[in-house]
Every structure is written in structure tokens, then in C-alpha cells.
């Protein structure tokens, strides 16, 4: 058995991600209906993603006067691309599409393109509110990137490898979430923040009339919104190989475990989303830099000491 | 693909960066020139590592140093720009003449 999936999976990966995204959007519609006191039948919720997509596809695109169409287009396209590229190191089962020796750094480097994407969309729209949205994302990004990186590093230290399949292999007995709970929580927080979603939705918040996405219409908005959901799904799916044992588990085959765990993580974030208000950037920044960053550093230190205690470098 | 080709590209990047750093009036643009210059240094370091001494790690360490230098350069540059702007409302190199002898 080779370490990577056959090449055809590279084509299948976006389809899989989109399918999971569909399910998550539908679940989010259901949860929103329940939280709002007006429950939506699940048949309606299941069709909502398709209906919205079709509506946006036939909808009118909007061109901003004096806007930078080129930069806005690049920004919008980069968002889903970043999510897809980050997902190539995700083990679907026990094997990923590309088993890079520095897979964790690859994931980090790709997902960070969201910074450029959101800012570019906000800038290119030539609207004050859009630009404010873009700036908000950068401000939040500076806050979540550090705990996020420390969480990734902690998992890599635990496995003593930057290769994602090695991280999965190291969790055959014990899931990393048990020995690094702080890193896991920080990772989940940064997943939502990376997709500027839920409590971290200020960059596209209602108080700035849609923020970075304010001036997007038609297919532009479809690409942007899809990219944002894909980013959430890809990043949440990464929590499975990093902290939740990947494809390891009894009875079921590896791919089924990955799917079940990914859906469980996403269900947890979707359920939490409707219980939490949007957090202001300055409060999140303060919490992140004063509490979360030191906590994740301490977590990395503890895991390092454990790794050293177990015999140091393999 | 050989050492000479890499080094010529690196030399081009260094020269373009130098040209930018020397001609730009805005302090921020000067820093963009310096970044481009260091970009050439990174490329040259990678080429030297690969084509001359691949068994060692000095090339990689040099790149790590240059990348850190870029971060420091940018942080310090923006801090100085901010300080000058706060004090005198200027953002052009030609206006910052305190140290002219």
C-alpha cells in the first residue's frame, strides 16, 4: 500500500469537501431555525444550499465604480483555492492526496492565504464598509495566528514529525486531544476565526452591512461564501488527524472514522455557533494575546517535556 | 537550471530592489525595495546550498537569518515611520532631515 491515494482522488477531493460543506450548511440552517424559534423542516434545510447557489449563479454581479476588479477577483478566487490546497494533506482514511514531509507547514501556509484573500476583496470593492471588513479580518488574524501555530506545533512535537500521516500514526494508542486539550481548543477557536465565522464573523458583520462581502453579488458572492465554508470544513477536518486520532478506531474502516469524526467536529462548531454572540475584535485580540498565546506556549512546553521524558528524539 | 542561472536571477532581484530603495520617496516604498533586495539574497543562499554545499545546513540557516532580518526590518521600519509621522506628519524620506550633517 503506497502512502498516498491514487491521483484520481485529487479530482474527488473537491467533490468530497463540497458534499461535506453542503451537509454543514444544511445543518447550520436547521440550527439557525431552532435558535431563532422558527424551526425549518429538514427537507427545506437540505435543499437550501442548492437553492442559494442557484440564486447567486443567476443573480446580477455588482461592479464597484473605481474599484479594483482585478484584485477583488483574485481575492475571491484565492479563498476557495486556499481551502482546497490546504486539504490535500488531509488523510482521507489513512492516506492523503499528497503526503508531504512538511504537511503541517503546508496546511498552515495555504490557509494563511485567506488573509490576503479577504483583505483583497475588501480593498477591491472600493467601499468603506468593505475595507473595514478587510481590516477587521487582519486584526483578528494577527490574534488567532499565534495560538493556531502553537497548536499545530504542539501536535507536531507530540508526533515528532511534520508529516500528517506520522501524526496520525502516533495516535494509534492515545488521541492527542487527551494530552494536549488546550491546543485542541485553541485550534478549534482558530478554525472558526480563520473562516471568519460564528463569533468571529465581525469581518462580514451586520454592523458594517456585510463588511468585506458587502459589495459582492451574483457569482462573486457565491465563490466568496463557498470559499469561506470550504475553509471552515477543511480546517475543522484537520482537527481529526491532528488531535482526534485520524482514521484510528474500532470496527469501522479508516475512511468512515475520518468522516464520522469530521462531521462530529463540525456539528460541535455549528451547535456552538448559535449559542455565542459575535465577539468584538479588540476583546478577542486581548484574550488571544494575553491568555490563549501563553496557554498554548505552556501546552507546547508540557508536550515537549513529555516527549523528552519518553526518550527524546526518535 | 544551474548555479549561474540562479545567481543571475538573484542579481537581477538585488539590483531592482536597490533601484527601488534608492529612487522611492516614500519611506514605506523604500522598505519594499529593501525587501526585494533581501529576496534576491534568499534565492542566492538556496542556490549556493544546492549547487555547492548541499551536505551542510549553512544555506538553510542563512535563509532563516535573512527571513528573520526581513521581519525585523519591516517591524523596525514601520515603527520609525510611525514615530516620525506622529512627531512631524511626514512620510517622505526627503522631509526627514534631522540627521543631515
Amino acid at each position, binding site marked *: 500500500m503506497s502512502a498516498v491515494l491514487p491521483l484520481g482522488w485529487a479530482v474527488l477531493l473537491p467533490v468530497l469537501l463540497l458534499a461535506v460543506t453542503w451537509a454543514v450548511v444544511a445543518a447550520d440552517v436547521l440550527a439557525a431555525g431552532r435558535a431563532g424559534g422558527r424551526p425549518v423542516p429538514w427537507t427545506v434545510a437540505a435543499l437550501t444550499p442548492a437553492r442559494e447557489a442557484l440564486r447567486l449563479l443567476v443573480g446580477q454581479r455588482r461592479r464597484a465604480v473605481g474599484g479594483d476588479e482585478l484584485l477583488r477577483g483574485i481575492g475571491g478566487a484565492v479563498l476557495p483555492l486556499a481551502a482546497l490546497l490546504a486539504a490535500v494533506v488531509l488523510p482521507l482514511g489513512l492516506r492523503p492526496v499528497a503526503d508531504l514531509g512538511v504537511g503541517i507547514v503546508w496546511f498552515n501556509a495555504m490557509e494563511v492565504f485567506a488573509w490576503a484573500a479577504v483583505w483583497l476583496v475588501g480593498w477591491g470593492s472600493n467601499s468603506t464598509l468593505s475595507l473595514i471588513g478587510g481590516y477587521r479580518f487582519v486584526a483578528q488574524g494577527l490574534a488567532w495566528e499565534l495560538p493556531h501555530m502553537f497548536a499545530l506545533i504542539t501536535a507536531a512535537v507530540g508526533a515528532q514529525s511534520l508529516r500528517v500521516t506520522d501524526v496520525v500514526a502516533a495516535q494509534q494508542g492515545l488521541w492527542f486531544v487527551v494530552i494536549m486539550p488546550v491546543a485542541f481548543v485553541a485550534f478549534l477557536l482558530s478554525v472558526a476565526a480563520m473562516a471568519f465565522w460564528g463569533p468571529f464573523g465581525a469581518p462580514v458583520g451586520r454592523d458594517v452591512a456585510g463588511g468585506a462581502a458587502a459589495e459582492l453579488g451574483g457569482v462573486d458572492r457565491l465563490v466568496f461564501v463557498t470559499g469561506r465554508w470550504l475553509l471552515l470544513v477543511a480546517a475543522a477536518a484537520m482537527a481529526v488527524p491532528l488531535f482526534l486520532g485520524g482514521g484510528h478506531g474500532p470496527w469501522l474502516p479508516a475512511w468512515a472514522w475520518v468522516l464520522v469524526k469530521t462531521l462530529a467536529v463540525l456539528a460541535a462548531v455549528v451547535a456552538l455557533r448559535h449559542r455565542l454572540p459575535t465577539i468584538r475584535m479588540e476583546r478577542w485580540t486581548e484574550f488571544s494575546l494575553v491568555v490563549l498565546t501563553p496557554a498554548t506556549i505552556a501546552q507546547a512546553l508540557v508536550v515537549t517535556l513529555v516527549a523528552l521524558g519518553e526518550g527524546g528524539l526518535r | 537550471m544551474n548555479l549561474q542561472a540562479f545567481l543571475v536571477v538573484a542579481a537581477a532581484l538585488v*539590483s531592482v530592489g536597490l533601484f527601488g530603495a534608492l529612487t522611492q520617496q516614500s519611506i514605506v516604498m523604500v522598505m*519594499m525595495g529593501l525587501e526585494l533586495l533581501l529576496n534576491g539574497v534568499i534565492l542566492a543562499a538556496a542556490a549556493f546550498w544546492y549547487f555547492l554545499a548541499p551536505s551542510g545546513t549553512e544555506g538553510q540557516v542563512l535563509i532563516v537569518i535573512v527571513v528573520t532580518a526581513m521581519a525585523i526590518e519591516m517591524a523596525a521600519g514601520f515603527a520609525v515611520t510611525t514615530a516620525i509621522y506622529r512627531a512631524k506628519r511626514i512620510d517622505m524620506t526627503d522631509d526627514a532631515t534631522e540627521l543631515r550633517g
Partner: protein
Amino acid sequence: MTTALFVVLAATAVVAGALVFRVDSMARATFLLLLSFLAVAGLVLMTGLQYVGLVIVLMMVIEMVVMAVFMIMYMMNPAGLMSMSMFHNTRGAAVIAAATFVALAGGALLVDWPVRGGSPAPDPTMALGESLMSGQMLTMMTLGVTLFATIVGTVVLATGRGRYDRLGDELDAPASDDRDRGGVGR
């Protein structure tokens, strides 16, 4: 194939780098510089340095977004909506830059480079890590201390209201008089 990739990446790096100083829009200038960095990162990846190449990508994306924020903040014409020249001493600089290029490229082509010694470690990332944590430890520690000094120095330089402004000359004010709550002066 490799040669074609090299030519494309090299041309992208140099052309995007040169365009940085030609375009009027500061946002475009910043992201052209990013494109140049990404092309160089691609070239570095081609030499087999996976970790360093990806770190360049990671760092430069963040750095250029932050750069864009400052560009917009401090340029009088950030969107380049009116065309204006922001150059000085173009001719002298062109001569210096051309001379530098001739000297460097000439040196690259004329020097009799030594033959390749040894072969890359099976995992260059591992080799880098081991080297930074043993032989090059001093380098790593120097970088760490320098970065820390930079953080302190830049905050001191860039801060608008220090603690003496917020808490009085004797630092004995019961609460800071900041407009915005939060932080250490809450």
C-alpha cells in the same frame, strides 16, 4: 520541464519585482511584491528545501498583508487614482543598480565555482532542525534575542501614549484616562 518551470518562476520573480515600482496602486504594488516572493519560494522549493520554501510563503503572505495596511496608512495616494511621480534621483539610482547587476551577474558567470561537495541530507528539514538545536544554537539564540529586542523597541517607538501619559508622572493615577477600555490600563 524543470527548465521551463525555472524560467517561468524566475521571470515572474523579476518582472513582478520590477512592476512594484511602476504601478500607481499601493495595493497592487504590495501584492506584486508578494508574487515575486512566491516565485522565489517556488525556486527555493525546486532546490528541495521544502520547509524553508513553505516558511517563506507563510511569512510573506502575512507580512505583505500587514505591509498593505501600512502602505494605505502612510501613502498620500494609496489607490493610485491620480497619477503622480514618487521618484527622486532616478538617473543616479539607475546607474548604481545597473552597475550592481553587472558586477554581481558578471561575478556569477566568471567565477570558477567549486564542484558540488556531497549530497543533500535525506531530510533537509530534520537536518536544519538538528543543526539549529546543536551547532547553530548560538545563531538561533541570537535571532531570538534580536526579535525580542525588536518587539520592545518597536513598541516603544510606535506607541502614542505610554504609561506616563496614561497614569500620570508618578504612575499613581487610580485608573488610566484612555478613551478605549481594555488592555493593561483597564
